[in-house]
């Protein structure tokens, strides 16, 4: 009996817009001008918001947070491809996508500022808050997708996570469930090369993260994660597949965490500056602006106007954050259960009495 090859697999890499802002005409997703501008503006807002958060954190006005500078394309590109019927399931480095989705920036600030109100998005549906536990949101996406499919919705779920998450059991279990169920889910791994201090080659022996899809029987693709149009195109294609009932896709977005893991982290302890510098040259904002300029959609004047607009919008949101009504101190007792219980009520009264004794204020 000869040995025969049963299966063979290949993994594609996709880049639509290169570092210089040159577009591959054959792969151009053909977005109208206003959508291209919208995408660029979203990335600029995300960058500026992230940098403002860093300053606020350094000034003691915000808690520890996880910066997303440099990774704007990997959440903004996919979000541009989504509709309001699609579910948005983030990890914690999707600031750009969250803002595009309609999460007010002050809610993001509240989250990192230590207030659960940062997870409350009034009037905004199908948008989950940040998931802190690595990979834990992946099975949720598989389940949300299942519910969408059961109801016959022509919509899908997009779920983000990092390269470190792919080592977790929840990644394996969640992607496997989604694949077996053909849940309409697009899994986007923001492979930013580092999980705090653990580099990719200490995270996995796989040549790509995308190839892990092969084992689950679903399509996987590597995309230049700093290419907003590549990310848009890959997500668009995966969403179409999901919506027509052909199941999930795994997209590996190759990007880079230009900054620290969180503001409590010092990357100089484990990585070299020249690596960071190399990735800075692949900035997603720079290439997107070059594309717009090449199509006469952008210039210095428009940039200045946008910078001023973004600064004002951020200023306004910071003001809302810093003056937000903290409500009654015992508000948290209202959300332990959906049904009242005398023991919780008793503890609430005890808590309020204690607060008075301690003369304590949040």
């Amino acid at each position, binding site marked *: 009996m000869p040995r025969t090859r049963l299966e063979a697999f290949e993994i594609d890499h996709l880049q639509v817009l290169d570092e210089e802002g040159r577009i591959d005409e054959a792969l151009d997703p053909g977005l109208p001008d206003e959508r291209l501008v919208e995408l660029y503006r979203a990335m600029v807002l995300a960058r500026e918001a992230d940098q403002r958060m860093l300053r606020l954190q350094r000034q003691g006005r915000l808690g520890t947070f996880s910066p997303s500078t440099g990774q704007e394309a990997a959440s903004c590109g996919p979000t541009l491809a989504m509709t309001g019927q699609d*579910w948005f399931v983030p990890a914690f480095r999707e600031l750009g996508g969250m803002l595009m989705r309609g999460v007010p920036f002050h809610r993001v600030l509240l989250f990192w500022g230590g207030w*659960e*109100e940062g*997870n*409350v*998005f*009034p009037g905004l549906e199908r948008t*989950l*808050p940040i*998931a802190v*536990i690595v990979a*834990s949101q*992946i*099975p*949720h*996406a*598989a*389940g*949300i*997708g*299942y*519910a*969408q499919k*059961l109801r016959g919705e022509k919509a899908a779920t997009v779920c983000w996570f990092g390269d470190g998450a792919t080592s977790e*059991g*929840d990644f394996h*279990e*969640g992607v*496997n*469930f989604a694949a*077996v*169920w053909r849940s309409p889910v697009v899994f986007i791994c923001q492979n930013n090369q580092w999980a705090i201090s653990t580099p990719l080659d200490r995270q996995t022996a796989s040549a790509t993260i995308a190839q892990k899809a092969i084992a689950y029987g679903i399509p996987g693709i590597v995309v230049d994660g700093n290419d907003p149009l590549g990310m848009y195109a890959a997500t668009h294609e995966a969403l179409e597949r999901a919506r027509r009932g052909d199941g999930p896709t795994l997209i590996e977005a190759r990007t880079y965490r230009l900054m620290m893991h969180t503001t409590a982290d010092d990357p100089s302890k484990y990585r070299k500056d020249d690596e960071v510098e190399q990735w800075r040259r692949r900035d997603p904002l720079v290439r997107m602006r070059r594309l717009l300029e090449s199509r006469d959609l952008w210039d210095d004047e428009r940039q200045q106007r946008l910078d001023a607009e973004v600064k004002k919008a951020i200023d306004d949101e910071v003001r809302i954050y810093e003056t937000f009504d903290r409500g009654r101190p015992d*508000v*948290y007792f*209202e*959300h*332990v*259960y*959906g*049904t009242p*219980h*005398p*023991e*919780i009520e*008793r503890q609430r009264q005890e808590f309020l009495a204690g607060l008075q004794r301690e003369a304590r204020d949040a």
Partner: protein
Amino acid sequence: MPRMTMVQAINLALHQAMERDPSVVALGQDIGVNEGVFRVTAGLHAKFGPERVIDTPLAEAAILGTAIGMAIAGLRPVAEMQFSGFSYLMLGQYEGHATRYRSRTHGQVTVPLVVRMPYGGGVRALEHHSESREVLYAHLPGSKVVIPSGPRNARALLAAAIEDPDPVVFMEPKQSYRAFREEVPAEHETMPIGRAQVVQQGTDITVISWGAMMRPTLRAVAEVAEARGASIEVIDLLTIAPLDGDTIVASVEKTGRAVVVQEAPRSFGPAAEVIARINDRALMHLEAPVRRVAMPDVMTPYFGRERLYFPGPHTVQRAIEETLDF
């Protein structure tokens, strides 16, 4: 009323919940075509189809994790852990998300789901199939833990759990699955979650238990009542968390004495919490220290000697007598 075993009663609750509410789905390992290893899900797959009665891959964390996603998206999932001994793999999802989402979103995102799991000893089962670890789930804020003791309350509590707006861990005492029958009404019936039940009124002492321990407890109570003419009040907790302290305290204020019987290991168990509630609110009514009868703090033995370790009726009886005599 038809007389049913607990397995049949739970099965009835599942059938009726799925009939009443199209958003109810069931998921777990071997629950569909195979109808569950204890046949608790009998007939569901045939009646409601594979899309609502979902045979999942073998992964406890993802069974709960996907159920959380389904609940967030508006379904009412009833997940099964094949045995409670395998449920610890889902603990991260349970603590990290199921119990937490309501609080962390101030009620905007909620996770109404039920996790059913057979627990406890007494069926001569393999290692990891006999433990009582309800306290692991009871300790978590936002968690509800329900443990029925008989067919009728099992059915009514499960029906309530599926309608409940919060995550409920529904622990089924597997040694009671087929041990006895009770009359169970055919029409929809619920019991309130978060409330204990006084199953027998009395004035001399309060005996508190739950789950499979209710039967040896009631046997011991009958013995003591007959031998000594004692008037014994018996409380079936039914819900472990949130614990119904009011019913316990009201009873002990009346009787002044109490014994708590648990199948779980002694330390840090639900009995300790019951006693703490009594100390907090009824200490001055006590005529005797509150006793607990429990499994020793040892790993649940293999079934060869498990019967030696679970609290038996004679030990319960002695604890009641000593507390009465104190």
